[in-house]
């Protein structure tokens, strides 16, 4: 049923439709509305049987989920930013043990400096943890991906994160079509665990593995995740058949493949990029947007295929690897290896800085007029002078103070908020 609803509320309802048996919750902005809504659904009995555990930290949230999933329960949790880092140890544990937990990440920047706004540094910091990582462009897609995520996780016996931009999606009210319980039940059968803690058939889970077998175990993990490259599109296709709309899959190109210039991105910014693409195409600029929907495993062949014939690729990402450069950019280059396509690494939207159509138009013009070099890290809407002033300040005195505070004083800003 289609309704005008907040993203978090929609996701909570979608998760509830998947009949999780255990939900563990620790609040962190901007995920709070999701776990609050699930609490209500459990309390009213709308979601039942379900145990809702209010835990004492994110580390506990995922740890409880690990226990619950190992005991054969369909399990869900959600987090963001610092919370994701706090459960880092458990992330690797869950994927290593092959537990099909589904977790929403309401993407948010990682401190220091503390920042509650959206970017992708949280999930990117954990990109190697062995979870499957899906990205939603809209709240509709977020809803759809959660349903697909449980199916995916349980088929492969691997945990899955569904990434949705914090605040930008979680707190946006927009139209969402929520499926019915009957539709979801038909699509998602009850959880049949590959391994389970059952007194009737005792097993030992989580033994130490030494040098003689560790490599093989890791290779099996990798092989299993690579299977997702086939399973993700198949589940997306099954979803389309069952629910009548396309979402998910590995990637999508707008409006078509084979354009001269392709902008690659993940998440909600793709909506804004699509608008800019339309405006430029109306001016006869041959540009397209490539949205990556499945970031891990990395759909290398599919991306290479999608970028066939491109004369230049602009990777626009909401995170970067300090000390080296773009993350998605690196991954894209891997997909393009051997092909003489220049790749432009553009970092935008860090810490919630809005990515505007105007800036994107300027960026595209700069690239097309060769005012920006490929293979060079570019920051969209960077205040270069501010950075220079701070660098100068640092060079002048050993006790120059913290960068953030100096810069805030410099711009005369004390309030938070992007406006």
């Amino acid at each position, binding site marked *: 049923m289609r309704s005008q609803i907040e993203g978090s509320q929609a996701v909570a309802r979608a998760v509830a439709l998947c009949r999780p048996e255990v939900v563990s919750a620790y609040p962190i902005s901007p995920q709070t509305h999701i776990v609050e809504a699930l609490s209500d659904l459990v309390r009213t009995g709308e979601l039942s049987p379900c145990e809702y555990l209010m835990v004492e930290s994110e580390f506990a949230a995922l740890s409880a989920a690990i226990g619950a999933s190992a005991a054969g329960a369909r399990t869900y949790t959600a987090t963001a930013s610092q919370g994701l880092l706090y459960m880092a140890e458990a992330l690797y544990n869950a994927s290593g043990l092959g537990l099909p937990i589904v977790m929403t990440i309401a993407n948010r920047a990682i401190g220091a400096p503390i920042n509650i706004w959206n970017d992708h540094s949280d999930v990117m910091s954990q990109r190697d943890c062995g979870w499957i990582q899906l990205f939603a462009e809209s709240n509709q897609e977020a809803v759809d991906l959660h349903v697909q995520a449980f199916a995916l996780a349980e088929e492969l016996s691997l945990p899955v994160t569904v990434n949705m931009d914090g605040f930008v999606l979680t707190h946006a009210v927009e139209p969402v079509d929520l499926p019915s319980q009957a539709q979801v039940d038909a699509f998602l059968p009850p959880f049949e665990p590959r391994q389970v803690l059952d007194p009737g058939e005792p097993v030992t889970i989580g033994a130490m593995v030494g040098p003689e077998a560790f490599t093989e175990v890791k290779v099996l993990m990798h092989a299993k995740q690579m299977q997702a490259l086939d399973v993700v599109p198949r589940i997306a296709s099954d979803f389309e058949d069952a629910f009548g709309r396309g979402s998910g899959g590995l990637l999508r190109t707008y409006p078509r493949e084979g354009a001269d210039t392709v902008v690659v991105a993940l998440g909600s910014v793709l909506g*804004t990029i699509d608008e800019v693409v339309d405006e430029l195409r109306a001016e006869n600029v041959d540009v397209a947007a490539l949205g990556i929907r499945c970031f891990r495993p990395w759909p290398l062949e599919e991306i290479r295929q999608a970028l066939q014939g491109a004369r230049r690729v602009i990777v626009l990402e909401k995170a970067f690897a300090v000390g080296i450069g773009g993350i998605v950019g690196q991954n894209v280059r891997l997909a393009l290896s051997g092909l003489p396509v220049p790749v432009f690494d553009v970092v935008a939207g860090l810490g919630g800085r809005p990515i505007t159509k105007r800036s994107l138009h300027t960026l595209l013009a700069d690239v097309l007029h060769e005012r920006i070099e490929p293979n060079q890290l570019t920051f969209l809407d960077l205040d270069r002078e501010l950075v220079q002033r701070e660098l100068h300040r640092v060079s002048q005195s050993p006790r120059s103070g913290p960068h953030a505070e100096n810069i805030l004083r410099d711009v005369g800003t004390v*309030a938070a908020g992007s406006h």
Partner: protein
Amino acid sequence: MFQVRIHGRGGQGVVTAAELLSVAAFLEGREAQAFPTFGSERTGAPVVAFCRIDDSVIRVREPITEPDALIVQDPTLLHQVDLFAGLSDDGYLLLNTGRSFDDLGLGAFVERFDVDRCVTVPATEIAREHLGRPLPNAALLGAFAALTGQVSVDSVAAAIRERFSGPTAEGNVTAAEHAHARVLQAGRASHA
């Protein structure tokens, strides 16, 4: 696309206003998107919320820098925040106050806008009357409906009733209808 920016202070229902407006548009079969800016605001700090209304799917997600309509829920923001940034000369301005633009020192400022598109409404007083609380957002939505015609007051009422129930819903609806009638009347009067 019609873009609305709403300014107010935390606790005045600014975010709810934007959401209700988007629901009202949705109920009329249109596409709508509402979202707030966020900060570590507590009650009383400046808050901004946005609403886009269109007939086709809204894909863009940036804050509204060039609003077609501005709603100001709290006149004390006037000299604290750059409220009017990006409002074009044929934009709509709706200000919550019992005073006039002249009284607030905005007389000269509003001359560059279309006089029919700039309105003051004592929304807080209207809310106190019908709701018993100084929560001006519903009244302002009713006024907005009259001012811009982007949504009908009936859709605003329906949106309110979807979100709230009982006396809270009815009080808000009455406040919206009261402000709506008032703006319509003032509009007729100014053309008389």
